């Protein structure tokens, strides 16, 4: 399972890199989304995915080694929320840029790089 998920994370990173290098704003966004998913899966893999009880203490069960470590999942949840907000913002930004520019090609966004002399 760890091997499988590591492969999934690797594929997500590879896909993210591919998309981030495209020239289209939407592809760029897809790249960012995949990158964040990849990062979340890396955290999940690093929690070692053991088969254990959910971390709810009930009377009588106090051996901590029987419970799964809840922290990685909390981290992932936190990261998902943050990334959701950021991606929503980026989507809105990309939409406004598209409206202002009238096209989606990143190669046409040169206004920030040009020297004013030209």
């Amino acid at each position: 399972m760890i091997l499988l998920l590591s492969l999934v994370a690797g594929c997500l990173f590879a896909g993210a890199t591919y998309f981030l290098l495209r020239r289209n704003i939407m592809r760029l966004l897809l790249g960012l989304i995949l990158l964040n998913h990849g990062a979340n899966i890396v955290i999940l893999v690093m929690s070692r995915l053991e088969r254990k009880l959910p971390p709810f203490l009930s009377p009588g069960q106090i051996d901590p080694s029987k419970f799964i470590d809840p922290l990685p999942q909390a981290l992932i949840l936190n990261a998902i929320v943050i990334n959701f907000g950021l991606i929503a913002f980026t989507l809105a930004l990309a939409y406004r840029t598209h409206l202002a520019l009238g096209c989606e090609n990143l190669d046409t966004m040169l206004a920030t790089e040009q020297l004013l002399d030209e």
Partner: protein
Amino acid sequence: MSNHLFLPILTLLLGSTLATILGRWRRVARGIVLLAISANFLYSSWLGNLIFVSKERQFVRVGTLIAPYGISFIADELSATMLFMTTFLTLLVVIFSFLTSIITEQIEDFFFYPLVLLILLGATGVFLTGDLFNLYVWFEVLLVSSFGLLTLGRKQIQLEGGLKFVELNLIGSALLLVGCGLIYGLVGTLNIGQITQRFQNLNSGLLTVLATLFLVAFSIKAAIFPTYFWLPASYHTPPSVVTALFAGILTKVGMYVFYRVFSLIFYINLVDKLTILLLILACLTMIVGIIGAIAQVSLRRMLSFHIICQTGYILSGLGLANEAGLAAGLFFMLHTMLVKTALLVIGGIAEASFGTDELKKMGGLAAREPLLATFWFLAMLSLAGFPPFSGFIGKLVLLKATLSAKQYLVAGVMAGVSLGTLFSLLKIWNEVFWKTLPKDEPEPAPIKPYTLIPAAILVGSSLLLGLGASVVLASNTLAAKQALDSIGYLSTVLPDSPKK
């Protein structure tokens, strides 16, 4: 336990919430913002003094959970110094934007001032937290408010710059997140002190991989070569007040994390393998930054490249990986935060007066506004490194540390880039202040003298920093000592843990 460490966070959260709700009444909202930042300024000077005098770290556990399980807040001299300087600069920039009309009412109504508070909140959180994942979260707070500030106004160039800024910074954040996850998997903790302790007993090749991962992530945040491209693409697009704020805070928070994480968690890797890499990156950042600055033909684009150039200096302080280097780098960081903000504030006044920041269309400001020209001249001397300003002392201690570490090439690059800095600043001086106004250009609007107050305070502070360098350097040396003292850090965070 020092519960007061929550104060700055609470003040800023409360202030930004109230300023958002009451945003319809501009004066009330402005009053709240000013009050919140001033309160934080007073608090941070008190905290800085407390730590400097007692030489002890301040520490608090959130929710009284025992350290590795709960998040802890910790302030040492390094974080207190940075907190003080950041709050001071934000205060001055906010006062500057009150005094001028660069921030239009339309932008103000879209929650400009609450966003400024949130950016300061993010920075404060980064400075005070003692937990790696919490640091990532505060970084996101900082980033998302900076995204907001950058794109307020919705001009096409802002949107383009914003997209580049957002994209590269989000990649950096994802790498940081991966780094946090890997560290947790490796040592089972996210408390910075405990990570440091467990890494010392861990002999794994993965550590170098992790260090490099963090290096790339922080390089993106701090605009280090070769990942600085978002900075010159975006810093010149928003209103000049925002650029002044970013110059003082954004990349410097990135540099702070560099200092914090590499002096504690990855210190062994730093000394073993990364020193050379960091020094090479620092030199390239300086060189590329200054060449970029010389090539530009508009005021703010030049100054944005200067920011990159100055981060190179700060990084080289860390690259030396010893106490003197860290202290010198920290002093230089304080100096460059002050002077960079001063230059951008003065540039902002000039830009508002001419209605453009193209050097070709400006001119004759020295005869028209002698006071503004004087302030620019003094700030320029300080950035280039003339005594008695802070730039002189900053470069002197940095050069001294570099030479005593026998990094002669780095010292040479520093000295050479310094000349380039003076050259490019003189170019601005010539174009904006000295030459006569081009014939077909409209007359610049007269400048109201009271708008110069923040610039005067900034230039004055740079002078004070230069004159009172011995005190500040003592504080910085203490900061460097505390930053490198992993055992002391750990025994503050985890008083009951076995000492290693």
